[in-house]
């Protein structure tokens, strides 16, 4: 019942008075109030002792006198449906013969039978219901008495209880539930660790590749000039970067992608290994050595080689790399 077409023009030919939106809204509001009151007081209106249904119908008749358009008439029809339904129910209460059945009276008799403790007898009639309390066995008592009406088959039970005792299953269930998540957790832990290792390894590999690319670039710029190992790895602005460079460069050596040789002054030089050389350079030619570097020797080397800037640019931030 939305008020969507409040301004919508009525059919042509209706006078201003009939089309007055305020007047129409008032009629609709009155109809809705009437419908609500019927819905809410339904039980009341069904009571054979009163004529409220007739009052409602008379009120609706009065309202209908000023109804000029379809929307209001639709509400009138809606009310009529409700009233008819009520009327039907009232008619069903009419018994041509014998006494009528009154559920409220039935409920009262049941309460007495079930042994209701009426606390305040006088109040009972005033607000109708829900005074006093029922004894514990009230429903059992009623059930026992009404048993004669039922031909219910006694349900089958094992004499000393069945062997399928109830308690164990829930316990098992609890255990299962406890186990399940811990398994899940165990399974998750290793995969998480693996992933971390993988990502670290990946980071190392990327860094190694980056350094190899640097080395190859310098070599390509001037293939004749040997690249001093110390000039290559040392970052004059950062000791830790230097250590990292040494660490990563060692992978290049290990994998046979770069080689270190001594120049005529006996200083180590580094150069990439060309593809042809990988074949000839067997495992026999390999030597291992340990390079140690300290903060002091790092400073010394910077001075001795007069290193102004790093040959290997500092990597972009880690997050960008990964």
């Amino acid at each position, binding site marked *: 019942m939305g008020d969507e077409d409040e301004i919508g023009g009525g059919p042509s030919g209706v006078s201003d008075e009939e089309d007055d939106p305020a007047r129409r809204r008032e009629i609709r509001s009155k109809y809705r109030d009437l419908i609500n009151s019927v819905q809410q007081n339904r039980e009341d209106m069904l009571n054979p002792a009163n004529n409220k249904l007739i009052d409602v119908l008379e009120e609706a008749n009065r309202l209908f006198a000023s109804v000029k358009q379809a929307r209001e008439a639709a509400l009138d029809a809606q009310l009529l449906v409700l009233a008819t339904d009520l009327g039907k129910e009232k008619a069903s209460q009419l018994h041509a013969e014998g006494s009528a*059945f009154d*559920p409220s009276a039935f409920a009262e008799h049941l309460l007495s039978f079930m042994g209701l403790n009426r606390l305040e007898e006088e109040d009972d009639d005033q607000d109708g219901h829900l005074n006093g309390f029922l004894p514990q066995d009230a429903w059992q008592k*009623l059930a026992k008495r009404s*048993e004669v*009406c039922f*031909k219910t088959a006694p349900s089958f039970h094992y004499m000393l209880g069945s062997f399928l005792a109830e308690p164990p299953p829930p316990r098992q269930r609890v255990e299962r539930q406890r186990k399940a998540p811990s398994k899940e957790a165990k399974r998750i832990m290793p995969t998480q660790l693996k992933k971390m290792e993988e990502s670290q390894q990946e980071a190392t590999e990327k860094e190694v590749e980056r350094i190899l690319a640097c080395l190859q670039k310098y070599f390509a710029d001037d293939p004749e000039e040997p690249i001093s190992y110390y000039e290559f790895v040392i970052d004059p602005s950062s000791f830790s970067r230097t250590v990292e460079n040494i660490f990563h460069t060692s992978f290049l050596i290990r994998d046979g992608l770069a080689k270190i040789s001594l120049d005529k002054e006996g200083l180590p030089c580094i150069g990439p290994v060309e593809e042809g050389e990988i074949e000839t350079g067997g495992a026999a030619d390999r030597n291992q050595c340990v390079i140690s570097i300290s903060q002091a020797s790092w400073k010394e080397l910077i001075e001795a080689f007069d290193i102004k800037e790093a040959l290997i640019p500092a990597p972009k931030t880690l997050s960008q790399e990964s």
Partner: protein
Amino acid sequence: MSQRKKASASQSKSQQTNVNEDEMTLSQMTSSQVQRARENFSSVQIDRKVAEVVQFILVKDQKKIPVRRADIVKHVMKEYKVIYSEVMNRVRRTFEQVFGLKLEEIDTKNHIYILINKLEAGETVSMCPGNPKSGLLFVILSIIFMKGGVAKENLVWNTLKKLRVDSGEKHDEFSDVKKLVTDEFVRQKYLEYVKIPHTEPVEFEFRWGLRADIELSKLKLLEFVAELHDQDPQSWTQQFREASASESRT
């Protein structure tokens, strides 16, 4: 009731009942085919199968949920389904002669069975205290019956409210009353809970379920209701007529 008649039924008659047996393979079988199928099982095997079906139905009956033929066939009969009616006849006889119970097919279309007590009330001396739920059920069934077979949902809830049972609240004995009434009682086939057509907002009404029709004595119910009102059962003329009629039918 007619197990002896059925057992010794003439060919044409057993064929007829078989036709009614519907969708299963046995429906197309002639009685001679059934005869041949039966020869595949020894009498000891059939006895055991009968006992299994009896136990299956007894256990199913604990919750008062009707037993479907499809379930009996699927879980117990299995390959014995070719001699289904023979086994069921003997199951029926066992229930009547051993347990004093009667196996009733409440729905002949969908083949749904329930057990009811064959002994007259009063003959049975029940040791156990009354089940509160059946007290509640009695109240609802009484309202429906006294109202002429149909009761609006609201009427039932309002009356129960007067008895301190609120459909919206958890009850000490019935816990979720709404669920007990509209679900459990309905599944047990004590009640039917159906939408009233053309209602806005939607309304529901209660009727007696198939089990209630068979398991309850309308006359005894009316007598109890009359006793509560301290009136003569005959003062409700229509209900009394209806109750007497259904009594003579069984």
